[in-house]
């Protein structure tokens, strides 16, 4: 079953700049779906279109639909979307630097019943003992990795059905990157939360995902089972940094793959 269905989405910034050009994707319930692509492809825009945060940046959905469990959520204000079960962890973590760790977590629970607060906090501290140690500390004084844990913990406080993660590994040291992906995997396995994971780190993302999409210039150019994508020579060349000799090409130049895939599928 699909938790999320995005159909033919078109997004325009500032009334003129068309950034998403008929994008469609789905996220299967209880699974991790990876959305990959180069800088500027429109990954963050896709997530913000789903979570309703576009409005704050003068962006607008001009076409298409976003369905959560078959119910349309596009056009709702962000607070209604959070209440319907979608929570986005924005690029760059965006913790509230002058609030303490615990206050940050409480913000995540803003839409939840009060009775849930204490159990939710305990659950997050279970996952991230580091946050428990620093609950009274200002979030701005924490390291990048701890801030990313806080951002994910804050999302857990909202108990979403669908978690949108925008480049959680961005700017982290390699060792921490591994930790973050382990945590994402664990969250998905233990809590059953559906995850749409945007990443530049394609290999790590595909390793924990069940399904993957690659987007370029506002469109999906390739999709498939994560394992199959990892084995795909074109993906290896363009997104996993494995050289097969030859100059750097953009995916668009190797459209033949799409055809091949159709024959195979």
């Amino acid at each position, binding site marked *: 079953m699909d938790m999320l269905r995005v159909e033919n989405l078109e997004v325009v910034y500032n009334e003129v700049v068309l950034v998403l050009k008929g994008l469609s994707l789905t996220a299967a319930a209880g699974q991790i779906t990876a959305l990959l692509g180069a800088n500027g492809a429109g990954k963050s825009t896709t997530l913000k279109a789903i979570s309703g945060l576009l409005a704050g940046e003068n962006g607008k959905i001009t076409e298409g639909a976003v369905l959560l469990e078959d119910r349309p959520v596009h056009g709702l204000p962000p*607070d209604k979307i959070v209440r319907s079960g979608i929570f986005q962890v924005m690029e760059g973590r965006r913790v509230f630097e002058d609030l303490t760790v615990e206050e940050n977590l409480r913000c995540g629970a*803003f839409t939840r019943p009060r009775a849930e607060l204490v159990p939710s906090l305990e659950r997050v501290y279970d996952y991230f003992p580091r946050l428990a140690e620093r609950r009274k500390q200002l979030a701005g004084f924490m390291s990048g990795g701890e801030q990313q844990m806080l951002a994910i913990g804050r999302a857990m406080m909202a108990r979403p059905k669908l978690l949108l993660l925008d480049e959680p590994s961005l700017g982290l040291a390699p060792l921490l990157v591994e930790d973050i992906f382990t945590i994402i995997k664990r969250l998905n396995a233990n809590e059953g939360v559906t995850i749409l994971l945007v990443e530049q780190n394609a290999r790590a993302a595909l390793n924990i995902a069940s399904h993957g999409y690659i987007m370029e210039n506002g469109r999906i150019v390739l999709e498939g089972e994560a394992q199959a994508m990892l084995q795909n020579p074109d993906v290896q060349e363009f997104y996993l940094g494995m050289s097969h000799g030859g100059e750097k090409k953009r995916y668009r130049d190797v459209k033949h793959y799409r055809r091949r895939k159709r024959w195979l599928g």
Partner: protein
Amino acid sequence: MEYYLQLVINGLVVGSIYALVALGFVVIYKATKVVNFAQGELVMVGAYACFSLTVEMQLPFLLSFLMTLGFSVVLGLAIERLVLRPMIGEPIISVVMVTIGLSSILKSLVQMFWGTQIQVYPQVLPQEPYFVMGVPVAPVYIAAFVLSALLFAIFSVFFKYSRLGVAMRATALDQCAAASMGIGIKSIFALSWCIAAVVSSVGGVILGNINGINAQLGHLGLKVFPAVILGGLDSLLGAALGGIVIGVLENVCDGAAKQLLGLGGFKEVAAFIVLVIILMVKPYGFFGTKQIERV
């Protein structure tokens, strides 16, 4: 010596009212980044609302005070909804101009309904003074100070511990991130105008009890600027201290100028002179957030 002690006590009382009004100003500035030039007029409107209820409608003071608070909540909501919300996304200078316009409108409305004469509140507290360190102090002064301190305490607790208070602080720090938590940004804006209107009207009612009121009461808003700039535009503690400091300094400087130099009318400028000197030393005020360039 007693003369100066008297001045300090008067300054503390007036300063606590400045602090209340500054609190309202800071709450709006923090949450919405709007510099509200109509803050003094909110004081005036609150004072007249209470005056109208107690004197013209003959309601008991406590009841009309509570009704004034309710009225302020509605006023704050109405101003945000009708005046400020249509301005969301407009350049900040336009929004500031709108608050200046709002201040003129509120002032004209008050003059239209109540004229420009000074109006006095009925005495609600006993006249018999208390003695503080040998200096006689009217009960209304003590009540004013206690009430201001109480309101400050309530709001400190609200911002520190309540869900909405924490959400307001989060919104002040990062609007987009707050929206992603499911915090309704528009409701937060409305709430901040409500708080500003309520604390200001309390200030207005206190002033009405001390001095009586007239349509010039809105000029109090001008005193709030030195107070908040001194404290740092975005700090509640700063607003409290800034208000108190300005209140005490202007009273003491004015008194000293009168006694030592025979100069009158020093009160109006004292605050600004002190302000300029302090800002030369601490450009972000005592508690203001420094602008840090982040890449």
